[in-house]
C-alpha cells in the first residue's frame, strides 16, 4: 500500500469525488479521460466515464513524487520514459520519481498497454499534469512570500525565489493540506529542444535488480502456504472431455485434485510433485476434425466473412489497361510470440476477495474477466502486474490468472500457476496467418495507376498503400481462424507491408527502375522520403555490388512512425546458401524521448522481425501444434544477427509516437527484395526460407 489514505479505491473507476477520499496529504494532480482523449487525439481509449481519472501525480508532504498509471512495463521501458517526462516538467532527477503501474486497486483504469499508445498518449498527458503541478507550486510559494510569480523558479524539489535565493521545499509548501488540482490546460510544456531530462539516454530505472537477479517477476513470487497448480489440457483443439480417472493422482498427502465440470487441476507443495500428480490422471477425450497447416490458405479464403471482392469495375479496367501489371498472392504463416517468461499467475482469496499477480498487458481486462467468471464485483478483485518478462502483444489475456484463482478458491490456499513453454505454445494465441491477393498496375514511366488489395484473416493494420495511386480498392476479409489468434507487435502491418513492398519492387523491376527511385517517384510525403533517403545513403545504396550480393529496400508508415529498411544478402550460387549480411534501418517517430531505449526498441523489433521474416512458423495438424518447443520452433539467436545500423531521425518539432511496432515491418520485404535482386527468385510467403538458409534456383 503506497501513499493512498485508505484501501477503499473504487475499481469501477476513480473519479474526482471519490479521489479526494483516497488522497493522502500533499498535492496531487489528476488527469481525466476527457483530457487524455483531447490531448492525444487517439481514438479507441474509451473512458469508463468522462470524469474518470486516467493518471495522477502525487507529491507527498515528504517530497516524494509518485506517478500512478494503469500502463504496464514489459521491457519497452516506459517506466523509464514516463519518469523522464514527469522529471522534466518538475525539474527533478529521474531517480526521485516513483511509478506505480498496472495495479487495479492503486492505479486508475487503463484499457491496456498496447498499440504503441503510451508514448503519444500517456507521455504528453503526464507532462501536462506535471507542469500543472509545477505552476501551482510556484504560485503557492509566490503567495507565501508575497512576491511576483515571475521571480520564483521550481528546481530540484524546491521552489526558489531567485532574487533573494530563498527556498522552500515542496513538502513544506503543502504541509497539512490535501490539494487536488485539475490539469491546467494553459500551462506551457517544455519544448523538445529545451529538454534536459527527457530526450536523453537515461538508463533503465530499475536495471540493477535485473542484473543481480533480484527483480521478482510473477513467476518468482511466493506467499506463505502457497501451493503450485497444474491444469489438465486436452490433446488437441476442439477436444472435449469424455471421462477422467483422477484416483491415482493423489501421490502424496500434499496433493489436491480439483475438478469443476471439465476443468481438472492439481495442486501440490512443489511444482515437480504437481507435475507428477497430473501425469497420473487418465482422461479420455472426444476429438473433432480440425483444419491443418497444409490447407490453411484455402481454408482462410473459403471461410472468410465477405468472400466477395467488392472492387469497383473502374479498378479492374484500370488494371487491365495498365502497361505494367503485377498479380501476386502472398501467404503469411501463423507465428508465436514466445515471451521468454511464459504466462504466470499467483492468486489468493481472503474473505471472498481475490488478489492476483499476473503478467498481462491488460490488468483491468483480466480483472473484468475474473469478475465475470467468478461472479463477484470487480471491486472485490485486485490484479497487479509487476514488470514482466515480455509480451509483444501476446499477453492481453488472463488464462493463468483464471486458472490460479480457480485452484486457489477450491483449495483455500494461495496458488501459483506457471505455464510451461509447451503450454505457452499451445494454449496462448498466435499472430494470425493470412492470405493476401494483389493486382497492381503502373504506367511505362513508373507511376502507379491501379491498386487492388485483399487481405484474408491477418487484419487491417498497415493495409493502406502509402503511394499515390488514383484507383485503389483495399479490403480486409475477416475469416474463421482454426488457431486462436490475437495481437502481435505491429499486428497485420507485417503481412500487409510485406505484400505491398514486394509488389512495389516487382513493378520497379518490370519498368527497369531503381527500386528506391521508383518509391520516391510514387511518394508525396516528405517524412517518408527522408527516412528512405537516410537509410539508402547510410547503406550505400548506389554502391557497386560485389558479385553474389543483393540489395533490397522497403519502407512503411505505421502507428504514426516512418521506417525505411535496407538489406544486403549474400548468395552462393554453387550451394544455394543465403546469408543476411547487413540491415540498415532509418526510423522517425517525432521527437525522441530516450535515444538509448528508442534504439533498444528498434533493435529488438527489427531482430525479432528477422525470425518471422526468415524461419518462424507454427506447424499444426488435426488440432495439434507440431512444434511446441524452442528446439522445434526456431527464434533468432546470436548467430542469426546480421550487422545492424540504426539511424534515429529526431524531429523535435513533432510530437513523439510509439516505437514498439513500426520497425518490425520493413525487415521481411527488404530481405525478400534483396533475395530477388541477387537470385531473381520472387518469394511470396512468410517465412521466406522455412527450410533453412538455402535457395535452389
Amino acid at each position: 500500500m503506497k501513499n493512498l489514505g485508505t484501501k477503499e479505491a473504487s475499481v469501477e473507476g476513480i473519479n474526482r469525488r471519490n479521489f479526494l477520499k483516497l488522497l493522502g496529504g500533499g498535492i496531487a494532480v489528476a488527469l481525466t479521460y476527457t483530457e487524455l482523449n483531447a490531448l492525444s487525439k487517439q481514438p479507441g481509449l474509451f473512458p469508463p466515464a468522462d470524469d474518470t481519472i486516467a493518471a495522477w501525480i502525487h507529491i507527498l508532504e515528504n517530497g516524494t513524487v509518485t506517478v500512478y498509471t494503469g500502463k504496464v512495463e514489459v521491457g519497452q521501458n516506459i517506466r523509464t520514459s514516463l519518469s523522464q517526462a514527469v522529471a522534466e516538467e518538475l525539474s527533478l532527477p529521474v531517480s526521485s520519481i516513483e511509478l506505480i503501474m498496472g495495479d487495479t486497486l492503486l492505479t486508475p483504469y487503463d484499457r491496456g498497454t498496447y498499440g504503441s499508445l503510451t508514448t503519444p498518449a500517456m507521455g504528453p498527458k503526464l507532462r501536462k499534469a506535471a507542469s500543472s503541478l509545477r505552476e501551482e507550486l510556484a504560485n503557492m510559494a509566490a503567495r507565501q512570500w508575497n512576491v511576483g510569480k515571475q521571480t520564483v523558479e521550481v528546481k530540484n524539489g524546491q521552489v526558489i525565489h531567485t532574487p533573494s535565493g530563498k527556498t522552500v521545499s515542496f513538502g513544506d509548501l503543502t504541509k497539512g493540506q490535501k490539494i487536488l488540482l485539475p490539469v491546467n490546460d494553459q500551462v506551457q510544456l517544455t519544448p523538445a529542444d529545451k529538454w534536459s531530462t527527457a530526450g536523453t539516454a537515461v538508463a533503465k530505472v530499475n536495471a540493477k535488480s535485473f542484473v543481480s537477479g533480484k527483480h521478482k517477476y510473477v513467476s518468482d513470487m511466493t506467499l506463505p502456504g502457497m501451493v503450485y497448480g497444474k491444469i489438465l489440457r486436452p490433446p488437441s483443439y476442439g477436444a472435449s472431455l469424455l471421462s477422467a480417472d483422477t484416483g491415482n493422482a493423489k501421490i502424496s498427502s500434499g496433493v489436491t485434485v480439483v475438478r469443476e465440470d471439465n476443468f481438472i487441476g492439481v495442486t501440490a507443495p512443489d511444482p515437480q510433485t504437481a507435475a507428477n500428480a497430473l501425469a497420473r490422471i487418465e482422461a479420455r477425450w472426444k476429438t473433432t476434425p480440425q483444419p491443418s497447416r497444409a490447407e490453411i490458405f484455402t481454408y482462410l479464403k473459403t471461410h472468410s466473412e465477405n468472400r466477395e471482392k467488392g472492387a469497383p469495375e473502374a479498378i479492374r479496367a484500370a488494371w487491365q489497361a495498365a502497361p505494367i501489371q503485377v498479380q501476386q498472392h502472398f501467404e503469411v504463416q501463423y507465428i508465436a510470440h514466445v515471451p521468454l517468461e511464459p504466462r504466470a499467475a499467483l492468486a489468493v482469496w481472503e474473505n471472498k476477495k481475490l488478489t492476483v499477480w499476473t503478467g498481462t498487458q491488460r490488468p483491468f481486462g483480466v480483472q473484468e474477466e475474473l469478475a465475470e467468471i467468478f461472479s463477484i464485483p470487480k471491486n472485490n478483485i485486485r490484479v497487479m502486474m509487476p514488470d514482466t518478462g515480455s509480451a509483444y502483444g501476446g499477453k492481453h489475456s488472463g488464462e493463468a490468472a483464471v486458472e490460479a484463482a480457480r485452484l486457489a478458491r477450491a483449495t483455500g490456499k494461495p496458488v501459483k500457476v506457471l505455464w510451461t513453454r509447451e503450454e505457452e505454445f499451445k494454449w496462448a494465441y498466435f499472430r494470425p496467418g493470412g492470405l493476401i491477393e494483389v493486382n497492381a498496375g503502373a504506367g511505362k514511366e513508373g507511376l502507379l495507376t491501379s491498386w487492388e488489395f485483399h487481405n484474408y484473416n491477418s487484419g487491417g493494420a498497415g493495409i493502406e498503400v502509402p503511394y499515390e495511386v488514383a484507383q485503389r480498392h483495399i479490403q480486409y476479409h475477416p475469416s474463421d481462424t482454426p488457431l486462436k489468434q490475437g495481437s502481435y507487435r505491429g499486428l497485420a502491418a507485417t503481412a500487409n507491408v510485406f505484400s505491398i513492398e514486394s509488389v512495389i519492387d516487382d513493378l520497379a523491376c518490370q519498368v527497369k527502375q531503381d527500386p528506391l527511385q521508383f518509391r520516391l517517384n510514387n511518394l508525396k510525403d516528405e517524412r517518408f522520403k527522408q527516412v528512405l533517403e537516410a537509410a539508402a545513403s547510410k547503406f550505400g545504396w548506389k554502391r557497386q555490388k560485389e558479385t553474389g550480393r543483393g540489395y533490397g529496400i522497403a519502407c512503411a508508415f505505421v502507428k504514426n512512425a516512418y521506417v525505411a529498411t535496407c538489406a544486403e544478402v549474400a548468395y552462393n550460387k554453387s550451394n544455394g546458401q543465403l546469408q543476411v549480411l547487413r540491415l540498415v534501418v532509418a526510423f522517425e517517430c517525432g521527437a525522441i524521448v530516450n535515444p538509448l531505449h528508442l534504439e533498444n526498441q528498434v533493435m529488438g523489433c527489427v531482430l525479432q522481425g528477422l525470425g518471422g521474416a526468415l524461419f518462424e512458423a507454427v506447424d499444426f495438424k488435426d488440432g495439434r501444434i507440431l512444434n511446441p518447443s524452442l528446439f522445434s520452433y526456431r527464434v533468432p539467436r546470436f548467430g542469426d544477427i546480421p550487422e545492424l545500423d540504426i539511424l534515429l531521425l529526431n524531429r523535435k518539432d513533432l510530437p513523439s509516437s510509439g516505437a514498439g511496432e513500426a520497425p518490425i515491418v520493413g525487415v521481411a520485404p527488404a530481405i525478400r527484395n534483396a533475395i530477388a535482386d541477387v537470385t531473381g527468385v520472387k518469394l511470396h510467403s512468410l517465412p521466406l526460407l522455412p527450410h533453412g538458409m538455402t535457395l535452389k534456383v
Partner: protein
Amino acid sequence: MKINVNGTDYTLDVPANTSLLDALRVNLHLTGSKYGCGEGACGACRVLIDGHATPSCITPLASVQDKFVVTIEGLEKEGQLHPVQQAFLDEDAFQCGYCCSGMIISAVALKTKNPRPTRQEIIEAMQGNICRCCVYPRIIKAVSKA
C-alpha cells in the same frame, strides 16, 4: 540430497526427479535463475556448475551433489557487482530482463576461460541463450567490454 550453492551447503528433501532449477527456485528461494523452456534450449536457467555454464532445468539435482553451483545471486561480492553484471548495467543490455541472469552466467563462464573473446567467440559461447527481446548487439557489446 546435499548440494553446495554459492559456497553454502544445503540438504534438501525433494522428489527424486527434481531438477536443479526447481531446487534452486523453490527450495532455496534463489529465483534469479529463470525458467524459459525446461529443455535446455533457451539458457534462461543457466548456472555455473564447477565453472561451466549449464542449463539447470535439465540437470537432475542428484547429479550435482559433489559439485559447486554458482547462481546469479552468487556473483556479487561484498555488495559489488561482478564486472560482467556491471557491463550489462552500463550497456543497458536488456529490455524485459528475463534472459539477463542466464546471459550473464554464460558470459562469466566465457570470460573466465577467455578474458578477451572475439565477437565470433562470444556468439559461439552464447548461442544457447535466447534473448526474445532480441537486444543481441547490446549483449555482445556488454560481454566484450566486461
